[in-house]
């Protein structure tokens, strides 16, 4: 079995809101093996991005353990955290908002190198920045350009170069292609796969685009309202989805064929409020198979077949 790089146990992140606590991430468990990609999917507001940020400690978790290379990083102090930033990086969703408009391309890429004092002098810095730019496919002439002069794809390349600058092992990709044109999406996805091969990177790839996640992931985690409902190898998940929510989600992928008649599972009912949720399966209100028992107690994540985890208590009934 491959070595686990990151493992998350009972992770919780609650936000205090006016009338209670918003359970953004509620009791999430998963792990990512070294060199692999975990795709995290789910509808907007289900806590995918929050999970990514909590894992990086950009947000502090409410409870749970985050084990990176076996060490619980939730207990890290400031200087340990600073060193951890060299290991774990993030690529953001919106390449228009994630780059400082007053800094040039080279200044943005050089910043992590300067913060962690990874270069000794100006020449070395210039050389390193130039090599990073060529790694992500940015032309040398853009060295002193400002982000607003570039298109979305090139900006996202800057974001990737900035993340790569510190030579990380693990990168959280928070919907890195959803703000881009379809043609550019492919370029960026290919670039990210190439980089993964070249540097042996491990990705946590957050997206709501199922075709993207299928293309890039080894394992896929499906989230619903802050909880993990299904975790399985990518192929297995698409071939044999078990959780009713996953089934509905997969049935929504458009198939580019006129003859193809696919039965879409349409979900009825309203999304349960994530603020002070009642015990019971979060999906019960919309689930076509829900029973009384589902609304009474939380469903637990079980391993159905090797590597395939599902959080649904009435799985046997559905079959």
């Amino acid at each position, binding site marked *: 079995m491959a070595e686990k790089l990151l493992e998350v146990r009972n992770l919780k992140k609650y936000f205090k809101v006016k009338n209670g606590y918003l359970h953004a991430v509620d009791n999430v468990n998963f792990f990512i093996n070294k060199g692999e990609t975990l795709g995290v999917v789910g509808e907007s507001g289900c806590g995918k991005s929050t999970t990514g940020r909590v894992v*990086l400690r950009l947000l502090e978790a409410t409870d749970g353990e985050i084990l990176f290379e076996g060490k619980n990083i939730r207990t890290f102090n400031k200087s340990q955290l600073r060193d951890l*930033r060299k290991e774990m990086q993030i690529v953001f969703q919106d390449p228009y908002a994630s*780059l400082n408009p007053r800094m040039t391309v080279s200044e943005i890429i050089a910043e992590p190198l300067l913060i962690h004092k990874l270069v000794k002098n100006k020449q070395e810095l210039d050389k390193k920045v130039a090599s990073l730019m060529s790694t992500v*496919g940015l*032309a040398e*002439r*853009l060295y002193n350009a*400002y982000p607003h002069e570039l298109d979305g794809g090139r900006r996202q390349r800057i974001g990737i170069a900035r993340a790569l600058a*510190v030579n990380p092992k693990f990168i959280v990709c928070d919907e890195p292609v959803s703000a881009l044109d379809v043609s550019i999406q492919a370029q960026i996805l290919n670039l990210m*796969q190439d980089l993964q091969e070249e540097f042996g990177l491990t990705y946590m790839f957050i997206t709501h685009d199922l075709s993207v996640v299928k293309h890039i992931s080894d394992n896929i985690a499906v989230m619903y309202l802050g909880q993990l409902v299904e975790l399985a190898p990518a192929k297995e998940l698409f071939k044999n989805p078990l959780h009713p929510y996953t089934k509905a989600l997969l049935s929504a992928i458009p198939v580019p064929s006129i003859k193809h008649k696919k039965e879409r599972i349409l979900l009825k009912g309203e999304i349960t409020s994530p603020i002070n949720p009642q015990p019971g399966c979060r999906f019960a209100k919309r689930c076509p198979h829900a029973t009384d028992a589902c609304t009474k107690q939380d469903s637990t994540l079980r391993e159905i077949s090797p590597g395939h985890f599902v959080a649904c208590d009435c799985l046997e009934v559905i079959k």
Partner: protein
Amino acid sequence: MIKMTETQASVPTTPKKRSIWLEVFRRMSKNKMAMFGLAIIIILVLTAVFADVIAPYEEVAIKQNLAQRLQGPSAKHWLGTDEFGRDIFARLVHGARVSLKVGIVAVGISILIGGTLGAVAGYYGGKIDNVIMRAMDIFLAIPSILLAIAIVSALGPSLFNLMLAIGISSVPSYARIVRASVLSLRDQEFIEAARAIGASDFRIVTKHIVPNALAPVIVQGTLGVAGAILSTAGLSFIGLGIQPPAPEWGSMLSGGRAYLRYAWHVTTFPGLLIMITILALNLLGDGLRDALDPKLKQ
């Protein structure tokens, strides 16, 4: 797998880093009113710098000559003489020194104090924000000219106290402006990105937040210089500002008001100059505001 690279990568030289401020100037240069304002400000600054060359201070601007008092404009005294026979043109030239100095230093003081307080309040939020901003609200409830009068009367009238008083009295407006822009910047992704690469709070504030929050402060500062000059003139008019015989626009205005009926020029010219300066600064400020707004990109 295809690795996409830039097609124009063969261009040999990388362009020089262009300053954002040069870009702003280029955009502003299309605005005629703003350039008019800028021209007047430049002339005033040059006048202030070379005041001693234009008119010697001791002999012309200060020395009284009662035989020539209250003369109208002539070839010898372009703008006439005041009630002590001093050349009004020369006094206006030297007054520019005081006015510009007070205007710039006072605004500098308020930007420094107000900007720091606003940045701290906006960045840390919560209790710190509440304490700072409520204190600012209390300040705002006092009319700023009244506050300036109170500070000057407490500390005694001197050039530095004047600058300090005017500066402090406009601290709250800068604190509010900076806090508002910091608040909107704080949740931007590039700030989070900076935190993700391990940047310290200090670095985030100085390298990422302040440069992006500067534009509205510069606009307000330009308009603020006009306000400070006006306040100086006002305080000098009531005798709390620059003390005679030093030439200052406001005190010149005040000195001439007794002779308004038969020597119109004594008050008219300082008044006109104050008006033109304020107008120029306001035009420049408006032009800067438009040029700094990225949404108006041409």
